[in-house]
């Protein structure tokens, strides 16, 4: 995909050969007997250039896949750490087009797939089809859509099929079995298992509900299930990867970037990556 892969002295692993889809990264990690670490950062915080550097730093320090947040005025699933950062990005002049520029720049430098996390209205206003093509052309893997569910996403499902983009829907501990099956069937790449009944933000304990939810997702036919919301330490990453295919860290990284800049977020990424190791027991081959 990325034509200009070696433009600015990219690392040998970057560019044309790097996996476009998170599913491929999960498969490769599964073959190696481990799960993946997914890192979230919003585009444009504290500014576009720094957000790109920070995302590159995540991968350099062991993050396997990136989730880039598209700052939105009404982020109902996000806690204060992410709200504060995305509000700052909007105030600093973020526009939707910056996301495509960021994806392209990041993809030219690191060999990690890049998903975009976005609330639905910005996509709707850009035009779902136009958005999908721009994301695909930039080398993006697909979308995580926190405020739409498969039953409200007919347009996005059709467009993402046509453009071969991954679509990650969320599953919650409160979801019924029937809804989990619908979510699994509609998702591509992985299903995002919300660890707890809550919004984003670091928590001391990742809810036991996450383990149960991942189990139910497997019963519903999920090949790939990644757990997010509340994960902030390497130990929590290790715990989650004992039963899930991926651990998603957001708020903690955003806070690290806000407090310690690119170096700070890199250090936390390295600490989190220390939690990525061979999964416990023989669960790895079960899916």
């Amino acid at each position, binding site marked *: 995909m990325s034509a200009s892969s070696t433009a600015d002295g990219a690392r040998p692993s970057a560019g044309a050969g790097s996996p476009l889809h998170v599913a491929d990264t999960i498969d490769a990690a599964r073959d190696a007997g481990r799960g993946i670490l997914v890192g979230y950062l919003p585009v444009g915080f504290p500014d576009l250039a720094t957000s790109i550097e920070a995302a590159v730093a995540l991968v350099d320090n062991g993050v396997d896949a990136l989730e880039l947040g598209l700052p*939105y*005025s*009404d*982020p*109902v*699933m996000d*806690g204060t750490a992410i*709200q504060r950062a995305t*509000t700052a990005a*909007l105030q600093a002049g973020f*526009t*939707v087009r910056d996301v495509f520029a960021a994806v392209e720049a990041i993809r030219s430098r690191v060999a990690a797939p890049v998903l975009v996390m976005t609330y*639905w*209205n*910005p*996509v*709707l*206003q*850009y035009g779902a089809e136009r958005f999908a093509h721009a994301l695909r052309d930039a080398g993006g893997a697909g979308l995580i859509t*926190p*405020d*739409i*569910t498969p*039953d*409200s996403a007919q347009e996005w499902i059709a467009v993402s099929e046509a453009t071969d983009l991954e679509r990650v*829907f*969320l*599953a*919650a501990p*409160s*979801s*019924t079995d029937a*809804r989990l099956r619908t*979510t699994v069937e509609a998702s591509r790449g992985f299903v995002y298992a*919300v660890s707890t*009944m*809550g*919004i984003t933000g670091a928590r001391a304990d990742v809810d036991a509900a996450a383990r149960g939810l991942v189990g139910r997702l497997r019963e519903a036919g999920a090949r790939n299930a990644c757990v997010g919301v509340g994960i902030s330490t390497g130990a929590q990453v290790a715990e989650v990867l004992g039963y899930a295919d991926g651990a998603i860290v957001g708020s903690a990284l955003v806070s690290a970037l806000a407090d310690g800049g690119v170096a700070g977020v890199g250090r936390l990424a390295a600490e989190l990556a220390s939690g990525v190791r061979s999964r416990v027991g023989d669960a790895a081959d079960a899916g």
Partner: protein
Amino acid sequence: MTEPLRLESLIALPGPYFGEYGGRFMPESLVAAIDELSEAYEAAKADPAFTAELDALHRDYTGRPSIMTEVPRFAEHAGGARIFLKREDLNHTGSHKINNVLGQALLTRRIGKTRVIAETGAGQHGVATATAAALFGFECTIFMGEVDTQRQALNVARMRLLGAEVVPVKTGSRTLKDAINDAYREWVTSVETTNYIFGTAAGPHPFPAMVRDFQSYIGREARAQMLERIGRLPDAVVACVGGGSNAIGIFDAFLDDAEVKLYGIEAAGDGVDTERHAASIERGRPGVLHGARSYLLQDADGQTLESHSISAGLDYPGVGPEHAYLADLGRASYQPATDTEAMDALALLSRTEGIIPAIESAHALAGALRLGRELGPEGVILVNLSGRGDKDVATAGRWFDLLDEGAEQS
């Protein structure tokens, strides 16, 4: 403009979609709770015991039916058209909000939850919810934009007096839209024990249809009162529109009466040609916010714009999806009224009729003044006086410079 011929009734449309508007664009974490509420509502609607209990509550607690008052001295300023006010301001708690809240409170009990949360703009819905919580013995938390807690300080005190916790919301524009965001965030976290009593006919299905149904007492009563009083239906029904619950509540019973024109008055703030207004239908375009597709004030990127109105209850950048549908159909017309027009109408009704309306409702009065001049002396206009103005006395005092030098208003 002639009405298109319609074969099917527009009354009590079930949702989730109203034409291309509405739907349920929600985080999965809330879908189970919304489904539960939806099913409980469908069951309740079909249960005569539920309706009987709600009717009894409205009779013995709200004070329904609310009266209808003709305002001839006010109408002299409207070209002589006859103007009737549906007096929702006389409901217990002072506005139409109680109609919806008592319905949802009964549902809350029906689904076995013991805590309620709500958003509020002007504080009317928050006060109504806090009132119902006291009546039913629920725990209650109200989310209110920090800007609104300041301009509606009296209502904050009322809610606290009623035993509710009031949380000033400090995110975003710190007004109604952000209060809704924070209420959703709280609901995601506490959904097992908590019901969200949504205050307007917007949001995800089933709220637009359910809130309309709970508010439709207004139109049913007013339609019968009109027939009884003057032997015919009004030429026009006028209501203010923020999210649009009082408007859809009075419109619903008239939707199939093609000869009755329906007017929703949006808050134009400083004017719809400025950046400071809340006229979502007049100046917005379709988008998704707070769970539904509807008209929305937004920028090219789909970021919600901040709305502006002197009226906290109309200061919302979206509008209920059924209004978007009625606007597209041409069944209802939506017109703006500025802060100045609304405040002038507020003063006029106060001085000519001894009725101080809420600033929200004063927008409808401003629309009626304009409309009356078009209709002339033969015209009959029904206005939904959705709330009383006690909460707005401090704002009016500042606007009209009525406060003595050095006087301290709470």
